[in-house]
């Protein structure tokens, strides 16, 4: 392990630890960013479940028909809208991050506003996706 000289007495700025999350009041940008991370991790864990559904939808006519059965369980009814939110929130905040990377809307007011706007886009879209998933329209 190599260490550079002159590293003594330098202030240390560490990441917020998970256990400290609740004691911080995050600004809108931090909140959207945290949810971006959270929704990403959620989808990572759900990947096999989504592949299982994808597999069933493509394997045969019978498998496709079985999807309706799977969708009728209360657990899946709970999970799928959650994952729809995760995908849509991750997508919308991801686009916001890309725009910030391109220095679009980077000043304080604009960034704070867009950090709120993402929810007004992703939440209604989630509602529509959930209604579509359960065949309301």
């Amino acid at each position, binding site marked *: 392990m190599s260490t550079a000289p002159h590293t003594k007495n330098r202030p240390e700025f560490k990441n917020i630890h*998970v256990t400290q999350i609740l004691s911080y009041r995050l600004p809108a940008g931090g909140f959207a960013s945290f949810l971006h991370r959270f929704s990403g991790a959620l989808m990572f864990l759900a990947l*096999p479940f989504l*592949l299982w559904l994808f*597999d069933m939808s493509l394997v045969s006519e019978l498998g496709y028909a079985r999807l309706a059965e799977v969708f009728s369980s209360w657990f899946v009814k709970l999970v799928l809208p959650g994952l729809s939110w995760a995908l849509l929130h991750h997508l919308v905040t991801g686009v916001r991050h*890309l725009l910030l990377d391109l220095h679009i809307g980077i000043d304080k007011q604009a960034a704070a506003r867009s950090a709120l706007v993402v929810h007004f886009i992703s939440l209604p879209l989630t509602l529509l996706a959930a209604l579509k998933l359960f065949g309301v329209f």
Partner: protein
Amino acid sequence: MAANIGPRRLVVGAHYGLRDWLAQRATAVVMAVYAIAVGVYAVFVLPPGYEAWAGLFVPLWMKVATLVAIGALVYHVWVGMREIFMDYVKPTSIRLFAYLLTLLWLAACAVWSVQILWRV
């Protein structure tokens, strides 16, 4: 910039930070384009039912496009999960173990998706 790096300052690293940062953004664009295109097409254009849905994945170019999107997903997820573990899991042994599990998890998902796509 260069003025900061004198003989007394040790610069180390494999410089994959910037590469991963860029790759995370590039793969995000690939996935967004694929997901929006397929999502909009499946919801608004495709007639309902198995025939049309499975038919969508029959052409080779669609299988390849889907697999490319899944490849982008795997890289993207790797960068993101690695970032999360670097931030929150400090003991090196547990962190490395989490990396290993993540890679195995993603490799398994990628192989499975090949099987799903090429059976249609």
